[in-house]
């Protein structure tokens, strides 16, 4: 399988009032064409920032301070804003959590889909509305012709997420980044939305980066898992192998904290401690050491980051 996205030693920092937040540090991973990769980690671990950096939509306070993001052979850190803009929505697109808020509240959903189609220029203006209706039908929206004239507030959360998916897939991208696409939806709707994404992805040979807290979801839908903690990739590998035999203590804890059938919620081990303060964290050192029960003296040394690739690897001095 050929490589589609390669993130190499990516570092991102935010300028804030409280100081510089080093949100990502030497993050590396890759995604092959048609592959589904999960990016997991607790809240604040930098999953969204990674995705935004890849899409080139970091907010103005944030800056890529090092590393490369290579998409389909193009180095996005070198590319002009124009070039990246042309890729976004056409070659790589993204869906977000809270789909209702992610749609323009005062624009008809058909128009919002048409905006994307027209932006990427593969359609005549007169044909855009009909194409939007076709896309809505494709994501399983009943009565798409009428719904295309609806506003987001007239649709349920699940319907809005389908519209989001229709927008993201409008130009048949080769990479879809789904940032917690199921948060805020009820359980059945979650499954329906995920199945929809998987089926469409298979149909089109589209690669998917699924960002989630939920290891169960990751194990069900993904080929590989990349685990993040405090702006570092701590472990990555094929899903079955990684879940069966985690090598990084953080992954092990994350697994222990995931509800599974047969285990009562009370037995779940909470992950002790909190994410370290990213404004003060020393550069290039394990950021989990403060919370780790396998810590050794040599853990203070600089950490060899995981190279991008499909192998099972953990960034740890004392792996399981």
């Amino acid at each position, binding site marked *: 399988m050929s490589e589609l996205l390669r993130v190499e030693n990516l570092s991102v920092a935010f300028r804030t009032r409280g100081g510089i937040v080093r949100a990502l540090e030497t993050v590396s991973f890759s995604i092959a064409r048609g592959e589904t990769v999960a990016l997991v980690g607790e809240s604040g671990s930098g999953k969204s920032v990674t995705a935004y950096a890849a899409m080139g939509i970091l907010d103005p306070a944030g800056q890529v301070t090092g590393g490369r993001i290579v998409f389909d052979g193009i180095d996005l850190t070198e590319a002009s804003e124009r070039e990246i803009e042309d*890729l*976004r929505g056409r070659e790589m697109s993204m869906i977000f959590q809270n789909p209702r808020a992610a749609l323009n509240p005062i624009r008809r959903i058909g128009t919002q889909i048409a*905006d994307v189609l027209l932006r990427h220029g593969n359609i005549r203006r007169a044909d855009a509305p009909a194409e939007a209706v076709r896309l809505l039908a494709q994501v399983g929206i009943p009565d798409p012709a009428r719904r295309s004239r609806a*506003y987001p507030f007239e649709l349920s959360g699940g319907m809005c997420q389908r519209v989001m998916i229709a927008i993201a897939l409008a130009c048949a991208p080769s990479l879809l980044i789904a940032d917690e696409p199921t948060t805020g939806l009820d359980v059945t709707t979650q499954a329906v939305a995920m199945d929809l994404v998987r089926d469409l992805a298979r149909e089109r040979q589209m690669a998917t980066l699924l960002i989630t807290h939920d290891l169960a979801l990751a194990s069900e839908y993904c080929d590989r898992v990349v685990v993040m903690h405090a702006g570092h990739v701590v472990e990555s590998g094929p899903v079955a192998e990684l879940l069966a035999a985690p090598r990084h203590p953080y992954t092990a804890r994350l697994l222990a904290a995931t509800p599974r059938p047969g285990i009562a919620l009370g037995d779940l081990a909470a992950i002790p401690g909190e994410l370290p303060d990213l404004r003060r964290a020393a550069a290039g050192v394990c950021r989990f050491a403060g919370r780790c029960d396998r810590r050794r003296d040599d853990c203070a040394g600089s950490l060899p980051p995981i190279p991008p690739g499909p192998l099972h690897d953990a960034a740890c001095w004392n792996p399981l």
Partner: protein
Amino acid sequence: MLTLIGRRLAAAIPSVIGVVVVTFVLTRALPGDPAAYFAGPNADAKAIAEIRTALGLDRSLPEQFVRYVGDLLRGDLGQSLSTGRPVLVELASRLPASLELTLLGLVISLAIALPLGILAATRPNSWVDHLCRVIVTLGVSMPTFFTGLVLVYVFYFLLGWSPAPLGRLDAFFSSPPDRTGLYLVDSLLAGDAETFVAAAGQLVLPAATLAIFTLAPLARMTRASMLAVLSADFIRTARASGLSGGTVVFAYAFRNAMLPVVTTLGMVFSFLLGANVLVEKVFAWPGIGSYAIEALIAADYAPIQGFVLTMALLYVVLNLSIDLLYGIIDPRLEPAA
């Protein structure tokens, strides 16, 4: 759309009733004898008694109110003592002057405030942002009449760029044939470029004065709501879809950001109509504001009452159009069938 208009019209009725009641109460709240007040300072006892009967002041209050409403419905706002002409006629002949000034002031203000607010919001901490902040803080502190006088001094006396601040048209010109009463429009309709330029020249300073006064709230609101909208989730979606910067700022952010700005327009109109009176005095503008000021000085009450009523009704109408505009921008108010 029609139901929306109907609903808004119905919602405006309490305001109109309130306005009519308040103007009635204001008339009867006159200290001492309203008849003597209406008769003016030079009337004798007989004249006052006649006025009392004529105004129905010898009847009960509810009866008087019914009469007052009846008069209003017939368009009878009483007579001006100083000119002897019906108040309605005078107000109607002067209203276009005020409207032209107010609307132009609003247009100038919007034309500056919206781009300024948008630029300030899209480029935080740039010089535009700082300029916006200075204007917003200074603008609300400038007394309108003072701004007007400073502009007159600079642009008329020092630079000589603008004509004397004495009314709508220089004495050398005759007013254009009356169609709308708005000189700019009428002179264009008559194809009279010279009069148009002359009328525009007279309008620039007073309209700019009004604009400076209303710039601040509009720019402040535009900036704040643009900032809020630009960090909204759906803007991120638009950017993630590769929509160009222009589309994102205008088709996505701007229209959403306009909602709170349109709401602020209500307050801006309140400011504008009030400031209009002061500006008319400074520029000897023959609108309804100067009419009211003349009447105030002559203690001529009917015109003042008519003026307050006209302004209030105008304000109700303006608020109504704001509501309609809001309804057009925001579909959430009227779910599609």
